[in-house]
């Protein structure tokens, strides 16, 4: 019995750290997004609270916690309250398997990649529940659009992940990172990276694919009726989802925590990992503030007619390439 205590204690510490990391990530990303958006638009951004506005998100969080939780009378009570919590769970849970560095990983499943993809597809369910239980036509619109969008962009994500899994022969995240110690996979599979990045952007419902929360058409889409902490949980979940997508891209294509050793710093693995993930997230922010929204049928067109054929061809070429490479290596 007392052997279980360290296991339970470790699990509790991991859980708390992961949830805290989700919130801290939202804090940092929210601030960076507002500052970068402001600089692109040639204005200063948040400057009042704290030096250069660093504490802006902290104050926003305090304000939002103090708001009244308004629940519409006709809304489906338990489901309406449950939806924000359900949106937060499937994006924080995959943090278990993400390798922040060689030793820093909660648990390395042998099917880690599959685990992430499975849990992340619960996102769609959350949006539908939020849209349906709000009893608001605008929310339902946003929810229905999001279902079609998420389902059609799951396929390119899976196909491009499959290319990497074929190459390394393992689904374990730590194994994939360690297979990249000579060369990063982005140099071998650039198209898979591009397809994965675009499809991942669509999975997170960010501009130019943000129809579920299209502001100028549908007021606010599926989170119209949420106020206060429920709304902020959706936002935190969105940033955590972005982190998840970018960290998968880093692990699969950009070499994970590999990087040359820094002289002054002990934990270079975690440093390089976080740098790469945040660079990718900043690219997502940059894309958001440049392009307009894609129309709904053109969005589905783009996925089914462009991304999926390319990723299928890429998969076939990868399989052929692996066979050729192995036979060449066998001959030499």
């Amino acid at each position, binding site marked *: 019995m007392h052997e279980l205590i360290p296991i339970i204690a470790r699990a509790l510490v991991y859980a708390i750290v992961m949830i805290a990391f989700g919130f801290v990530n939202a804090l940092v990303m929210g601030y960076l997004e507002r500052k970068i958006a402001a600089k692109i638009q040639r204005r200063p951004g948040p400057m009042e609270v704290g030096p250069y506005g660093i504490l802006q998100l902290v104050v926003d969080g305090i304000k939002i916690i103090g708001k009244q939780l308004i629940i519409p009378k006709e809304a489906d009570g338990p489901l309406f309250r449950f939806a924000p919590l359900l949106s937060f769970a499937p994006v924080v849970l995959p943090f278990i398997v993400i390798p922040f560095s060689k030793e820093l990983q909660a648990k390395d499943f042998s099917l880690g990649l599959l685990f992430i993809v499975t849990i992340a597809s619960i996102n769609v369910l959350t949006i539908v529940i939020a849209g349906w239980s709000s009893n608001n036509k*605008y929310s339902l619109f946003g929810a229905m659009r999001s279902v079609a969008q998420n389902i059609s962009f799951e396929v390119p994500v899976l196909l491009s992940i499959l290319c990497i899994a074929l190459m390394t022969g393992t689904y374990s995240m730590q194994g994939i990172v360690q297979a990249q110690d000579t060369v990063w996979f982005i140099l071998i599979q650039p198209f898979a990276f591009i397809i994965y990045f675009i499809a991942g952007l669509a999975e997170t419902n960010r501009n130019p694919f943000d129809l579920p929360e299209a502001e100028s*058409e549908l007021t606010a889409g599926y989170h119209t009726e949420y106020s206060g902490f429920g709304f902020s949980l959706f936002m935190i979940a969105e940033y955590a989802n972005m982190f998840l997508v970018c960290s998968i891209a880093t692990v699969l294509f950009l070499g994970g925590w590999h990087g040359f050793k820094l002289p002054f710093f002990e934990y270079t693995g975690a440093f390089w990992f976080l740098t790469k993930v945040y660079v990718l997230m900043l690219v997502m922010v940059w894309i958001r*503030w440049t392009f307009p*929204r894609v129309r709904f049928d053109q969005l589905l067109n783009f996925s089914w007619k462009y991304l999926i054929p390319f990723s299928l061809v890429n998969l076939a070429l990868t399989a052929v390439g692996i066979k050729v490479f192995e036979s060449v290596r066998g001959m030499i």
Partner: protein
Amino acid sequence: MINTPDISITPVPPGPGEKAAKAHRFYLNLGPQHPSTHGVLRVILEMDGEYVLDPQPDLGFGHRMHEKMGETRPWSQFFANVGRMDYVNAMAFNHGYAALIERAAGIEVPRRAEYIRVITAELNRLASHLLWVGAFILDLGAFTPILYTFDDRESILDILEDITGSRLTYSYFRVGGVMKDIDDTFISRTRAFIKQLRDRFPMYETLVNTNVIIKNRMTGVGVISPDMARRYGVTGGVLRGSGIPYDVRKNAPYSVYPEFDFLVPVGKNGDSMDRYLVKFAEMEQSLRIIEQALDKLPEGDFRAKVKRIKLNPGMTSFSVETARGELTFFLMGDGSDTPYRLKIRVPSFSNLSVMPELCSYMLLSDLVTVMGSFDLVIPEIDR
């Protein structure tokens, strides 16, 4: 006679017999409060899934009784109102009203005043087009071009603030000329601004005009045939996008526009992309007019001396070209200094009336695009 369906304020749910057929349709309000920056407009949409079956605009939320104020006050006190009807393009409204009174009373305007009027009106047209480009792309979902266009618009507003004193709702024109003369700083600042805006056009072309997402969203959307445009009386960029080269400055010239050499851009297909490109090209033509006017600016009075005017009985009218289309003022005088009736025909009203026929069975995103491409300013519809 145009056959318009009976519009009631609240939509009537289907009766018992029709219930089965229409059970999956629902009503949605593109309500008076809306994030798109058109104004206070309510559009009642009958939706079938994502498709809009029958949009009915519901006007009147911003009615401020400007025409009634024209009837109860002497003609000289209406200059406070003209700038506020369409605040984005207030100079054109100023021009129309001042020229209307001058035509009714037979007053001659000095040439320098006419040139100043043309220069300020064209600067205001540029400001209006820049705002429209930004707001239209904002409706489509891109958040940055609007800030770039507002940055350019700031230069125009600063230039006009220096001589008129206001930034948005100008009441600068007076009967007989303008209120204040322009000086050398105005001329040099305007020339510098023309060069600055010309250098910015390539950036807008790269960021907006050639962007594949915008091209896909706007081509083929909301095609207005020339016959439909004629039936509803649309004017302005909407009409020119459909292929009809009608511009009041060329077809029924007023002021000193015949002395300038400028083109009228005309589209081919009548879709949203053509309407957008036509108005984008008009900005370059406005810059040409301002350049020519600055080169040819004559010396002289900026305001003619005007005796007390009593409005003769009878009807007078005057048409100008605003950024949105043809604006006409009608005046019915009765011998005193208060008009008997002042009627204002605004271009956005006719442009909006195309919407029920044009947008039946269209996607909701396309409806938003089409409404943005019409360049509506709801306060001028509601007056």
